């Protein structure tokens, strides 16, 4: 825990100062997690603020301060999920599969050309985004938390409130789908 449980208890009773301190303590971590969950730096702050607004209005439902972190992660995952669904609705007209442009991006990633660092990062994000379109938003988030964030199955169990075996099966299937899409991109002669 990044903060004392007593601070969470105070925030639960409506202490604005204590809530401010909670936000300041977790802000960086939540911003980082959201950045990896949604892959769009321009919208990270907006989603993070939504997480903390939801936290503010749901703190009274928190049973004990001990489960605060999984609770906060769950709010983060839910906010990221809502965001991804909104974005998906907006971009449904776009092609779902890897476009020629994305295949070219994959080529440049593999080729390791000396390009501008930020441009290169953007290409990696877009390529992963294209791969993640082969799984549902829920599976994308789960896979990202496990493979990119590096959360353990125990931590995921606490966040999702699901059995470890069920999570393993879901992770395996999601990973296989992403792997298949990745292999298809490779077979296209780009990687």
């Amino acid at each position, binding site marked *: 825990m990044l903060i004392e449980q007593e601070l969470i208890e105070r925030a639960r009773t409506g202490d604005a100062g204590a809530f*401010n301190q909670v*936000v*300041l303590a977790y*802000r*960086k*971590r939540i*911003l*980082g997690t959201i*950045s*990896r969950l949604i*892959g769009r*730096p321009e919208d*990270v*702050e907006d989603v*993070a*603020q*939504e997480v*903390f*607004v939801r936290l*503010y*209005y749901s703190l009274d439902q928190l049973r004990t301060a001990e489960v605060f972190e999984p609770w906060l992660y769950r709010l983060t995952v839910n906010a990221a999920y809502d965001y991804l669904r909104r974005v998906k609705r907006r971009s449904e007209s776009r092609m779902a599969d890897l476009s020629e442009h994305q295949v070219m991006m994959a080529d440049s*990633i593999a080729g390791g050309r000396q390009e501008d660092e930020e441009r*290169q*990062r*953007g290409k*990696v*994000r877009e*390529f*992963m985004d294209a*791969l993640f379109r082969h799984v549902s938003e829920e599976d994308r988030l789960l896979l990202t938390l496990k*493979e*990119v964030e590096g959360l353990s199955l125990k931590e995921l169990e606490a966040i999702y409130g699901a059995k470890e075996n069920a999570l393993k099966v879901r992770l395996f299937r999601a*990973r296989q789908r*992403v*792997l298949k899409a*990745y*292999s298809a991109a*490779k077979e296209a002669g780009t*990687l």
Partner: protein
Amino acid sequence: MTDGDYQLDGLFQRYRAACPDVDAGPNFMPTLWAKIENRRGFAFTFERLAKPLMTVLAAVCILLFVLNLTGVGQNNSPAASYTDALAADSSAERTYYTEAIRDDPSRFQAPVEFRHSRSR
């Protein structure tokens, strides 16, 4: 683990590097509190309207219940049972009963031999 699995793991690591931790901008906290206040305003308005609305709806429910009870008492006699309802139904009286009418009996007379035998 296949070769593809290792490559995918590498790609996940590159994705992590491509999405570094983000520092919040200077307006993060003011905007957050503005959003909290904005939602509190909506929640407060909703709560303020919801309470009287609930009272009115509860009163309407009680009124309808009372009317229903008194209404059942009045309607007992005409349709107490299915047979009573059938008896009360006057639609059968309005049903037309049609039959062939012989307006000119001479056109339908029996053959002559029969007529004679009968007259005998």
